[in-house]
């Protein structure tokens, strides 16, 4: 399969998944969302009439005017139709894709806007900051530790690392997070237990404060996953070290170190890159709980809080945005695998 076709094929697949997720979301939460929108319109009309200058003969006339107005606006926004008609679903999917989801009832941005799009866009960078940094740290540690233990296959270090990887893989990340809070926040008082900075976002020191609050979540994410990472890297490397071309290089007298770090690692590159991408994508999903435990002000925390108060517009918007992030990460991973792997390119 050529590069162009792969790209086309992957993009098509990505959009298919995106629509599937959107469709499920809209089907599941559509009618609740309709009810909330109707209520918002009703309140708006009543407010306008109360504030407005229109005079009415009696209360009957007033209420019939209000009802007409409500029905009229329902019609404009398509709320008079049943929740599951095709045109309605299409309309709804478009509004989710443009994040045109109205206002949140419970949340605002740091600057007071309650528009769902503003709220979500304010949170996305913080989630990306934490989880991308964590993934980079883990990857670097994993590659170095992994190549080290691969070069010492069967040694004490190798065995310890494998055992550690198996153990750390069985622990729920959010549970380790709670333990870290007990150790570093409660017992040692080194880091704050709540990762939301206290200083105002307009403060010049806000970013430094944010980084300080990010330390504990970051350490936790790294501790939980670096062992498994090193194990994966080791697995790929050992497979390659047993290949014929490596044996050939060895007989040519190239040093072990050079073989390991330049030849073997380069060949293990594509599968490692894929694993990095998939891990990053998966960590966005796990972010909901990890962020909630640490109170890190990102998308996951917002999701957790939105579920608590059942803020449907926010839930729908976040599901969409996190799916997009997830798919883009997987897409980039696929493409980079194709670009990195000489065998894929050649054929």
């Amino acid at each position, binding site marked *: 399969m050529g590069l162009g076709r792969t790209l086309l094929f992957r993009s098509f697949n990505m959009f298919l*998944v995106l629509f599937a997720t959107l469709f499920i979301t809209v089907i599941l939460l559509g009618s609740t969302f309709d009810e909330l929108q109707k209520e918002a319109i009703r309140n708006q009309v009543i407010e306008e009439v109360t504030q407005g200058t229109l005079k009415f003969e009696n209360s009957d006339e007033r209420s019939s005017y209000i009802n007409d107005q409500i029905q009229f606006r329902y019609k404009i926004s398509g709320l008079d139709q049943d929740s599951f008609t095709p045109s309605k679903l299409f309309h709804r999917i478009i509004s989710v894709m443009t994040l045109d989801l109205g206002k949140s009832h419970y949340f605002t941005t740091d600057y007071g806007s309650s528009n769902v799009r503003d709220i979500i866009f304010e949170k996305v960078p913080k989630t990306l900051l934490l989880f991308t940094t964590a993934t980079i740290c883990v990857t670097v540690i994993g590659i170095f530790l992994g190549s080290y233990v691969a070069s010492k296959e069967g040694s004490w270090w190798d065995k310890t690392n494998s055992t550690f990887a198996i153990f750390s893989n069985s622990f729920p990340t959010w549970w380790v997070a*709670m333990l870290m809070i007990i150790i570093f926040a409660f017992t040692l008082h080194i880091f704050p237990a709540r990762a939301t900075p206290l200083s105002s976002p307009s403060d010049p020191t806000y970013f430094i404060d944010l980084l300080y609050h990010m330390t504990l979540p970051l350490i936790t994410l790294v501790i939980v996953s670096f062992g498994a990472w090193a194990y994966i890297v080791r697995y790929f490397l050992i497979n390659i070290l047993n290949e014929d071309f490596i044996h050939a290089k060895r007989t040519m007298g190239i040093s072990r170190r050079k073989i390991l770090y330049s030849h073997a690692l380069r060949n293990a590159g594509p599968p490692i890159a894929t694993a990095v991408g998939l891990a990053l994508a998966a960590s966005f999903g796990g972010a909901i709980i990890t962020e909630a435990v640490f109170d890190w002000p990102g998308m996951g925390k917002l*999701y957790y809080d939105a579920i608590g108060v059942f803020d449907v517009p926010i839930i729908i918007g976040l599901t969409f945005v996190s799916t997009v992030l997830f798919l883009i990460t997987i897409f980039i991973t696929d493409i980079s695998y194709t670009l990195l792997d000489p065998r894929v390119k050649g054929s």
Partner: protein
Amino acid sequence: MQKKLLLGLLRSRRGIIGVTIIAFLLVLSAVAPLIIPIESYFRWNDPDYWINNPKTVAPFWTNFFGPKEFEHLSLDKNDAKVSSESSEGTRVDNYTFQVDMQADSFPDDIMFLYSVKYGDIPPVLQIDINRPDNNTFTIYYSSLPPTNNINTSFSDRIFSTNENIKESLKQYESLFNYSISGLEPQVVIFSDTNKPNVLKGMYQISERFYLFDNYSSVEDAGLILGGKVFGIMGTDDLRRDLAVGIIWGTPIALFIGLTVSIFSIAIGLIYGVIAGYRGKRTDETMMRVNDIFYALPTLPLLILLSITFGRSIFLIIGFILIFSWMGTAKVIRSIALQIRNYQYVEAAKLMGQSDLMVIFKHIVPQLLPLTFASIAIAVPAAILAEAALSFIGLGDPSLPTWGQILHDANTADAASRGIWWWIIPPGLMIALTGLAFFLIGNTLDAIANPLRNKNK
């Protein structure tokens, strides 16, 4: 092959560790209903059931590492020495509780429980405390409230904060070498008269009921001394015994894990075999669908599903199933692609056997060993998924699961309050269960997976 699997499992050290842990968990699940009352399972979220326990206290064994804190003591009628005497129409029922006080700290509070059936003349309750220094404090003397109904019994509990008790203790002020005004009654009762420390030794605490007619009778009497340590795992903010929650969580976790993994592997097996065996268009389409499921964001969709459809344990198992069969389907399909071309399969086809026959008679049996390995490997993910849902607060509200205990702990800010005994055990149990199944699955997979053996 099955025998080879079992032997291989028991020959590897990791396999044995895994089997041992799971055997322990199974035994724990089996004896759970025998060692703890079944009511604690159904009333896990009912605060009334746990009322006699202390609130948020550490396990008793923390006493080994620091000052000896008072261990929570809850005594009922059966622990009491009962005596009865009567004179001139008055009967005195006496319930005496022995308390061996050896702690370095005072109890948090004292509760006297009773339940009495009586008629027109209310009985009188007197509480005496006989101390190791041979002083006897009468701390309470009062008649029970009048009642009209002789058929129902009157139940109540007297707390150490009771005004009557505070007043009564004032008359013993002179016995103490220091001022006891302002001290809590439970402190005064257990204090040394010479210095403000605990007076260690044997206390006799008696509830005396003066009954004035024949149909009056004492139904129940009890004594609770609120401690700072309790049980082997302590209690949480709702006074629940965490050891009970941990034990009940075991069968539930095993049930969820095994059900989800068995069904998801079965689905994946059938799906993968059909795709691999039929090949061509069918394979292409089925793998496309598989890719789509693979790329769906699991946790957000799990959340949406349980918000919309409900949170019963069976629904949750169904939801997790939707997102857990794809991996197996992919692996099985690639192996089925190979098996399809084996000569004996071709022979069976030439002999005119139907596709269904070939699949279930010739291909699936080949895949069974790998299936067992996959089932074991799939368990931890299922347990983690349920724990994650529970942790968010979307678990089955009627069950005590480990995830739910951690959810309650997180809601109560247990981590930043340093309540480690509320957090460590449930998480360790999740990890331990996951680890055991992972070890077994990994060992089986090393024996049974042809793809893996080829790479070696």
